[in-house]
Structure formats: C-alpha cells, structure tokens
C-alpha cells in the first residue's frame, strides 16, 4: 500500500479522472459533442484496412440478396431498361404537371427536365460497431464531390439511401429502410407503363421493409365502393419515389415492390401496403452503392478533382 502513496499524483488520479470525464461525455447533449467526429474519422481510418476486406468476405458469405446477379451484358440491358423506364416515368410525371399548370393558367414553368448527375460506384467499408445501427460507411467523401443528402442507389434504379455525414475520404449513408430515415412519398405504378398511379406515404418498419397507406380515388356518384378498389394493387407491383423532400436526382427511383397488401374492413377505400426493395435486397448488407452527385456550377470544380471511389459509371 505504501507504494501507492509514492505514485505521481498524475498517475494516481489518471484513472478516476478518466472515468469522471467519460461520465461527463456520456451525458453531454449531442449538440456539444460534434467535435468527436474528427476523432471518429481517425479511428475509422485506422480500422478500415482490416474492416474493408472483412466486409467483402462477409458479403460473399451472406450477400444482400440470394438472387444471383446476371451476366454483365444482361445486367447492362436490365440497367438500361430500368433507367429508360425511370426517365419515361419522370417525363410522364412532368407532362402531367405541365398539363395541370397550363390548365390553371400558370406561367413561369422553370423545372429542369432532368438533373445531370455524376455517378460514382463505391464500396461499403464498414458498419457501426453497434448492430442496432444500420448506417453504412462508404469509401467516397468530399474529395469525390459527395455532399450531405447525396442519394445512393444499388443495382440500377433501386433507391438505397441518403448520405447523412461526409468526411474527406468517406461518408455515412442511411438506408431508406432504417426507422430514422423518416417518411417517403411514393407512387404505386399500377401498370408497367406508369400511366396509372396511386400516391402513398411509406414509413420504414425496421425489418427491411416499408409500410404505408394507399388511398383509392373516391368513386363517382352512384358507383359502388367495391368498384373503386383497384384490383391491380397487389404483391409484385412497383413503388417509386415521388417526394419533393428528396433531391431531384432521386425522383422516380424504385423504392421496392409490394410484398403484401392488407385491406381495411372499416375503410374500404384505404389499403395498407408493405414494400420490400427489389430482389429482396437487404439494404444494410449491400457490397457497394452508386452515389448520384448532382453536377452544377458549384460542384463542377469538385468533380474535376480525382475521385475517391471506384470511378464514374
């Protein structure tokens, strides 16, 4: 015991002081803890060399979807088909909007027909150490032009999520299926061409799906309610994003396919749908994502810099 008394005070009190400091930081409100982001970035840089190959191995063992990816040429054709279908839907949505505006004698139509984007495919290099957090670390950061709210997609037009924070070399992405990602405005495509649609609001369930209400249009007077219920609303139907809160570069991307429809006996004109990403993808377990970075005057200079991802598509 006597030996302890001769310890330097700095050594003697270092442990209790550290504990007190940790208790303070444990309860300090988040708004005062933003400085930790820099330290976290450093730790992340140190851990990445080991976590990156482990993620690759882990995804090989347990892929995001059990459906095998097709051949390269087929994949390109599928991608082109999906992309053109998306553009068609955008064009149709814009057409509808234009017609409405003309009808209302509105002037000053200024919406751009489409948003030019740079696409960067980047690997997922890690997750949170806590399994309940579904956020993903992706190897592309400010250096590649990524900004907060940059949209991520996977496998062509499947919407994946949104960047919630960005460092110089990496960013953190929140998949749309995470409960914290909030409500998504969607459009149910009742026919393949996307001429007939229904609006919906989807909320993540926390189990890899999204749930929301779909309301059928009120039937004309004299028509039975049963006739207003559209039988085309069934499992397998595609739901796309149509939400002004999301960037234009994300609109009409696929949220998923309807997995289940529940009819409400008390409200026959309303149904509850459960939507799962295409191919049963688990958005937490994807190997890589495509970052869609809008190209504008401000970001043009950033785009010219060498990219940190695996390269533009």
């Amino acid at each position, binding site marked *: 015991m006597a030996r302890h008394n001769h310890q330097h005070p700095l050594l003697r009190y270092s442990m209790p002081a550290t504990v007190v400091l*940790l208790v303070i*930081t444990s309860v300090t*409100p*988040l708004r005062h803890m933003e400085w930790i982001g820099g330290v976290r970035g450093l730790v992340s840089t140190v*851990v990445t060399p080991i*976590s990156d190959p482990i993620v690759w191995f882990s995804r090989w063992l347990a892929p995001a979807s059990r459906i095998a990816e097709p051949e390269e040429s087929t994949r390109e054709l599928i991608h082109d088909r999906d992309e053109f279908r998306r553009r068609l839907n955008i064009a149709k949505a814009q057409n509808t909007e234009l017609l409405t505006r003309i009808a209302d004698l509105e002037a000053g139509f200024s919406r751009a027909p489409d948003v030019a984007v740079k696409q960067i495919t980047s690997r997922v290099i890690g997750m949170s150490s*806590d*399994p309940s957090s579904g956020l993903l670390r992706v190897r592309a950061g400010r250096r590649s032009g990524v900004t907060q709210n940059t949209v991520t997609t996977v496998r062509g037009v499947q919407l994946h999520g949104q960047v*919630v924070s960005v460092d110089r070399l990496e960013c953190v992405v929140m998949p749309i299926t995470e409960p*914290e990602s909030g409500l998504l405005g969607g459009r149910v495509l009742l026919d393949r061409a996307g001429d007939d649609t229904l609006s919906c609001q989807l909320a993540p369930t926390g189990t890899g799906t999204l749930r929301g209400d779909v309301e059928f249009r009120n039937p004309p007077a004299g028509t039975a309610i049963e006739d207003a219920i559209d039988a085309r609303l069934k499992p397998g139907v595609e739901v796309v994003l149509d939400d002004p809160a999301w960037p234009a570069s994300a609109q009409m991307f696929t949220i998923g396919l309807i997995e289940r429809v529940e009819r409400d006996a008390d409200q026959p004109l309303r149904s509850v749908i459960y939507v799962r990403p295409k191919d049963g993808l688990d958005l937490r377990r994807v190997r890589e994502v495509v970052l869609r970075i809008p190209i504008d005057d401000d970001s043009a200079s950033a785009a010219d810099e060498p990219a940190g991802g695996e390269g533009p598509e």
Partner: protein
Amino acid sequence: MNWIVFLVVSWFALGLEVGFDALRLAPGDVAPSFVIPILVYIALSAPAKHALWAALLIGALLDLTWIIPRDDLAEATVIGPNALGALIATQLVLSLRGMVIRKHPLTLVVLSIASASVMGVVVVAFMTLRELYGDPIDFSPTGELGTRLLSALYTGATALVWAVVLRLMEPMFLFQHDRGMRRH
C-alpha cells in the same frame, strides 16, 4: 502484458466487429461481439490496472465506431457509454477471476456472456438518460435491452472460438511475467 500484441489483436477484433455482419441475425439485429472476449481474456490474465486501462481503451474504440442514427437525418457519436460499460464488466471479471479456472474455454464463454450483458445494461442506461432530456436519438430502451442481452448470449459463440485462438497466442502476451507480480 505485451501492449503491442494486445493492440494488434484488438485492432483485428474491432475490424471484425465493424466489418463482419454475416453472423447477424435479422430481423432483430442480434449479433455477437468479437471485442468483448478479448476484454474478458485480458481481465482474466493481466494485472488489474492493465486490465482496466485496456477495458477503457477497447470501450472508447467501440464508442468511436458506433454510428448512432439521429432523428433529423444525421448521425452522431457518443464517447463514454461503452467505455464505462467495459470498465464495469472488467471489474466484474476481476472480482470473479479468483474463483474460476482461467484456462478453461468455458470460463471465457460464460464470462464473455456476463460481461456483454453488463455492458449492454450500462449502454442502455446512458442512452435512455440521453433520450429523457431530449437528445434527437430514436432509442427504445426495452427493445435495445432485449437485443443486447440476446447479442450477449450470442457472444458466447465467438468467445469459444477466441478461447482457442487466444490459448495459442498466450505466450505472445507475456502474461507469465505478470503472474510473478503482485495483483492489486
């Protein structure tokens, strides 16, 4: 204790913790910890002071790799809950290590489950406190506690594998030298 070997092993375990999710059971987010068995192994073998500092270090690293989703479409990091949880869990192992067979693989399994449970309770307690004063985090104490206790049980599986690996690595940790010293 050889701190370099400890740091290398912890680095590898942390890489597994943030990279290897193939064992994750979904839905429910139940996943084993790869780091906690290291913590318990050190607490079983090293001098108490070394074990406590190692626990603080590992806990702090877990905190710094924990990306907490916020309600306002952002993320946050909190340093402290895992570090303090690891410290308390290590104290638990230190108080029990005189009563267990240190080299038996099941010792590491059982104590890893107990330590992970203690850490889970401490982390949930701190995060619940944060939610009480209105931090923008979506945290369900009951659900989180259930998930963490199930994850603690699952950690027993990784602890069994670690028990074999760490037994082979034991000479590198130089604990024999520590055994001659007084433990306090």
